[in-house]
């Protein structure tokens, strides 16, 4: 098994009195696609938010490439190469697609003077190439806000790739996308993993998608880790089936 790139160790998070995550431990191995599933309200998005520094955690430790990141803020973590997409797709609505891509270049090494740089032809070429990769090339000059929901989702994915992340955390990449397009999206996610070597950590509700794609899957229920294993193991795990059917 390859080296874990994200290590989550006994992380707890509660909002007011509601425990959203209770002592969750998991590992995301380098170069693989890892899935995170669980019924609604099981704490998947909370865990994502904890990892990317969106809110402080109550207890536990989160390591990225061996570096403790649970005290860092969102921007620093993103600059380390850990980038997430949002469940409610977020793009810059009043900029066109190309501009959306240009501003998504990695800011890891950005010095003060880089703020005033014009995007290089290389960057432009890469942006066009990635837009082509997700099938938005023809719409590259359209305002991002005028795209359909599915297209915005693709744009957000392309922006994330533009950021050259080491790990990409996707929050429900197929939610709201036309079922006929899902196969195309799965293919692109896979290619991003194999061709660009990006490790993926994916929350997904669509079982067919995640079982198809993931190398291993974690299942949460009621804020606790319920099961972990290969897609086959998870599919046949009675506890997971019970959790999804609402049994306790």
């Amino acid at each position: 098994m390859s080296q874990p790139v994200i290590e989550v160790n006994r992380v707890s998070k509660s909002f007011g009195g509601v425990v959203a995550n209770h002592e969750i431990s998991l590992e995301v191995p380098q170069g693989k696609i890892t899935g995170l599933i669980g019924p609604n309200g099981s704490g998947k998005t909370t865990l994502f938010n904890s990892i990317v520094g969106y809110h402080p955690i109550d207890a536990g430790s989160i390591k990225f490439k061996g570096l403790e990141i649970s005290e860092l803020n969102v921007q620093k973590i993103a600059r380390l190469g850990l980038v997430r997409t949002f469940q409610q797709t977020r793009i810059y609505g009043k900029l066109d697609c190309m501009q959306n891509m240009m501003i998504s270049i990695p800011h890891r090494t950005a010095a003060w003077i880089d703020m005033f740089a014009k995007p290089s032809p290389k960057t432009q070429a890469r942006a066009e190439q990635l837009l082509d990769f997700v099938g938005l090339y023809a719409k590259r000059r359209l305002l991002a806000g005028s795209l359909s929901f599915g297209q915005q989702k693709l744009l957000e994915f392309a922006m994330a790739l533009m950021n050259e992340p080491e790990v990409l955390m996707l929050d429900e990449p197929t939610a709201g996308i036309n079922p006929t397009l899902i196969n195309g999206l799965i293919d692109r996610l896979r290619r991003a993993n194999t061709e660009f070597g990006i490790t993926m950590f994916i929350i997904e509700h669509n079982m067919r998608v995640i079982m198809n794609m993931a190398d291993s899957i974690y299942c949460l229920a009621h804020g606790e880790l319920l099961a972990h294993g290969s897609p086959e193991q998870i599919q046949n795990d009675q506890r997971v089936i019970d959790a999804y059917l609402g049994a306790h």
Partner: protein
Amino acid sequence: MLDNLSLLAQAPVLNIQLLLDGLFIGATFALAAYGLALVWGVMNVKNLCQGDMVILGGFITVTLAHNGIHPIFGLPVAIVALFVYGWIVYRLIICRVIERDLFTSLLATFGLAIVMAQSMNLIFGPEVTTADSGFETRTLFDGLVTVAEIKVVSLLLAATLATIVIVFMKRSRMGQAIRATAQDARAARVMGIDTDRVYQFTYALNAAICGAAGCLISMIWTIQPFFGITHSIRAFVIVTAAGFGNLFGVILAGFGLGFAEQYSGFVLGAQFQQATVVGLLVIVLVVRQIQQARHRRAVI
């Protein structure tokens, strides 16, 4: 400045004077701030003409007093007049900005604040004025502390009004509708509450509360057409410090601001009064920011 401080230490009884005055004036601040907390919390409108509504209530009282009507009877008039005024302002302006971004409502009410202050300047003149209640002033501690009876009356009136509003919000159907809308306007709409009417009533109620506060202020203190902005900032200081869901906090912060102004006025000099209010605003905002920064990222 140091002289004044040592004076306070030598004659502790002066503290009583400052605390009492802070209490009396703070009660009116709390009243106006409660109105702001209401519109802010229920309809998410940052009402920058809050203070000008207060001053308008004051001028109504003063005008009536000049025509032989006792300021205390000016109170119901100011309340009703401002309620109607708020109702109209909602129809003309607020209902058009309520669903828009926050800066829109802020700027629109700021524009209204300018219109109101300047109109009052034209109508009532720029003089600093007050409504004379004709009540006695009592002295305590061998004349070291003075208490005007009207200030005590005003405090009682403020307390009564606050109680009425609180009971109204808890018990009446409209009060319940307001609180439901504040929690989730969409859900309230689905449940058949006419949120537009709720907003309209809330804004008018806020104006009425401001009118009452203005009436009390005109009796115990002074008013002038351009004092409005300071009252607005006071209300913002109080609500920002207390948070708009926190009634007890609003009252406490209102008294706190009253004390702070009295003390800074005494220690630093009267010209620092406005600087104190504005300074407190900046401090309160900074403290809030530090509180938020302590989290890695503000939780929404």
